[in-house]
C-alpha cells in the first residue's frame, strides 16, 4: 500500500476516545419518565384508567366505587376485551383486522345452529364454532402472508363475506334464550355468574382475564412472542435473522380467529340468545381497534403490550358506565373516546422518539 493511501492513519493513532459505550450518565426525571414509558408502554393507559376511576369516584361517590359497579364494567367489556386482545395481536404484526367482530358473531351463530339444526351436543358445538373461527383466521393469514395482500383490504373483504355468510346461513333467525337454556345450556356456560364479596363475576369475565394473561405471558416470554414483535417491527430484518415470517403470520391470524370464536361463545353467555344481527358484527372491529389504540399499541407494529389493550377496553367501559351514572348524554362518551384516541396516538408518537 502506497504511503499516500494511508490517509486514515491519523484516526488510528488517536484511539483513546470512547465511541461505543452504553453509559449515558445521569438523566433528568423527565427523561427517566420518558424511558419508563418507552420500555413499559402499558403505563400510559394504566395512568389514564386510574385517573378516570378517581375522577368518576370523586364525582359519583360510592355509587361508582361499589364492587357491583366496578364488576359491572368488567361484564360490559368482556366481549370487546376479548376482541381487543385478538386485535392487539394483529396490530403488533403491523396489520389490522376489520373482521374480528363478524367472525365472533358467525362463530356464535355456528355454535347455536349446529346444536339446534343438526342436534349436535353443545359440548361439541362449541369446539366446532372455535374451529370455524380458526379456519377463517387461517384464510386471512394465508392471503396476507402468502399473497402479500394488505391486511386492511383482506379483512375488509372478509368482514363483508363473513357477515353475509352469517345472515345467509342463519336465515337471520335468532335462537331464543329460553330454548338454549332448556336444550343446550352449555352454550351459555360463560354467562354463569358467581359472587365474590358483593362483586358479581361471570365466567366470561374470567375467560377474558385468562386470554389477556396467557397472551401477555406468551408474547413476553416465548420465542414465538419475540417473533411476533420482530415481524411487526421489520419483516425483512426478521426474515434475514432467521424468523419464519410466513409461519409467524399464519399462526397469529389463526390464534386471532380462535380468540374471535371464544368471543362468540362469550356473546352467547352475555346475551343468552344467539342473534345473527348482534351489533358486534358491525361495530366490534371498531370497538376493538379503539381499545387497542387507547391501550398504546402502535399501529405501525412491533410496539405495545396486550395488557395495554386490556386497559384500553377498561377505559372505554369506565367512561361509558361513569357518564351514564352521571346522567350525561351518551354522545359525551363518544366525544371523549374520540379525544382519547387522538391523544393516545399523539403520546405514542412522542414515546417512539428515542432519547438521545
Amino acid at each position, binding site marked *: *500500500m502506497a504511503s499516500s493511501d494511508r490517509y486514515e492513519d491519523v484516526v488510528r493513532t488517536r484511539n483513546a476516545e470512547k465511541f461505543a459505550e452504553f453509559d449515558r450518565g445521569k438523566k433528568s426525571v423527565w427523561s427517566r419518565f420518558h424511558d419508563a414509558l418507552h420500555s413499559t408502554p402499558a403505563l400510559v393507559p394504566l395512568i389514564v384508567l386510574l385517573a378516570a376511576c378517581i375522577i368518576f369516584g370523586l364525582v359519583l361517590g360510592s355509587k361508582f366505587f361499589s364492587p357491583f359497579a366496578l364488576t359491572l364494567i368488567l361484564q360490559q367489556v368482556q366481549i370487546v376485551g376479548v376482541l381487543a386482545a385478538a386485535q392487539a395481536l394483529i396490530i403488533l404484526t403491523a396489520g389490522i383486522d376489520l373482521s374480528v367482530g363478524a367472525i365472533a358473531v358467525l362463530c356464535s351463530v355456528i355454535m347455536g345452529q349446529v346444536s339446534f339444526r343438526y342436534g349436535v351436543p353443545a359440548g361439541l358445538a362449541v369446539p366446532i364454532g372455535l374451529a370455524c373461527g380458526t379456519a377463517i383466521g387461517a384464510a386471512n393469514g394465508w392471503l396476507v402472508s402468502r399473497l402479500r395482500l394488505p391486511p386492511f383490504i383482506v379483512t375488509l373483504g372478509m368482514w363483508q363475506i363473513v357477515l353475509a355468510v352469517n345472515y345467509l346461513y342463519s336465515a337471520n333467525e335468532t335462537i331464543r334464550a329460553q330454548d338454549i337454556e332448556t336444550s343446550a345450556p352449555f352454550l351459555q356456560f360463560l354467562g354463569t355468574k358467581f359472587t365474590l364479596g358483593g362483586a358479581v363475576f361471570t365466567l366470561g369475565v374470567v375467560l377474558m382475564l385468562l386470554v389477556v394473561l396467557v397472551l401477555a405471558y406468551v408474547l413476553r416470554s416465548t420465542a414465538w412472542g419475540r417473533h411476533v414483535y420482530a415481524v411487526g417491527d421489520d419483516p425483512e430484518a426478521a426474515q434475514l435473522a432467521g424468523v419464519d415470517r410466513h409461519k409467524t403470520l399464519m399462526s397469529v391470524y389463526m390464534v386471532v380467529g380462535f380468540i374471535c370464536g371464544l368471543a362468540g361463545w362469550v356473546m352467547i353467555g352475555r346475551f343468552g340468545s344467539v342473534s345473527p344481527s348482534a351489533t358486534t358484527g358491525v361495530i366490534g372491529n371498531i370497538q376493538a381497534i379503539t381499545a387497542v389504540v387507547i391501550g398504546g399499541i402502535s399501529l405501525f407494529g412491533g410496539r405495545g403490550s396486550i395488557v395495554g389493550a386490556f386497559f384500553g377496553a377498561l377505559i372505554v367501559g369506565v367512561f361509558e358506565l361513569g357518564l351514564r351514572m352521571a346522567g350525561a348524554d351518551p354522545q359525551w362518551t363518544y366525544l371523549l373516546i374520540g379525544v382519547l384516541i387522538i391523544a393516545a396516538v399523539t403520546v405514542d408518537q412522542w414515546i417512539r422518539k428515542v432519547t438521545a
Partner: protein
Amino acid sequence: MTTPVLEARGLVKRYGKVTALDHCDFDLRPGEILAVIGDNGAGKSTLIKALSGAVIPDGGEILLDGKPVAFTSPNDARAQGIETVYQTLAMSPALSIADNMFMGRELRMPGVMGKVFRKLDRKRMEEFSREKLAELGLMTIQNINQTVETLSGGQRQGVAVARAAAFGSRVVILDEPTAALGVKESRRVLELIQSVRSRGIPIILISHNMPHVFEVADRIHIHRLGKRLCVIDPKAHSMSDAVAYMTGAAVPEGHLEPA
C-alpha cells in the same frame, strides 16, 4: 495447499436475460480475511447471496470443507456455521440487544418451564450476549436489555458483528460493514473484524472502501462481469491497480491466482 473452507466452482445464476454469475469460482482459505471487490453490477452481491443461502444458484457447486453442500435458505447456511452480517443489519429496532442476538435461535428454560410452557431463558441469553460483546472488546455494557434503536450506528454494527461471530463457527460474511459509518466508527468495526479473525474464523469482506480493504485483507478477490477476474495480494499491488482491474482499465498480468 490446504483445503479451502468455502469453495465455489462454476457458479451460474441468471435473472431472466441477465447473467449475474457466469461460471464463477471462489475460494476462502482457513483463517484469512478475503475481500471481495467489484464495480456495481459485477455480481458480487449475487455471489455472496449464493454462498449464504439467500440465492439458489442455477448451476455449479459450493463446497464446505471440501464437501458439496446445497443451501436452500439462509437458515441452511447458518446451520452449517456460516453467518452473514447484512448491509441492513437485519435487526429489530424495538427489541433488546439480547433478543436480537438470539433472534430465531432462542434458548429455552431447562425442564418443564421450557418444554411445556416454552419459557425463554432470559438470564442465560443475556449473560451470553454480554460475554460475546465483551469478548470482542466491544463495549462496557450498562444494559443488555436496551433496545437496539437506542444505539448509535457503530454500536448496532458492533452488535451485528458480535452476533455473527458468536454463532458463525466456520465463516463470517460481512456485507459493506463500514458503508454507513463515520471514520471513527469504521475504525472500530475494522478492529472487530481483526479480532474475529484472530479467533481463527475466516471472513469474507465485501466493501467499496479501498483503504479499508487494503488494510485488513489477506487476499483480494476482484469480481468483474459475473466472474472472478483475479485474486491479488494487497502487499504486492496498489489501490490504483485494484481499481484498474475492477473497472477493466487494465488487465492483470501473469498468473491470476497467487499461491
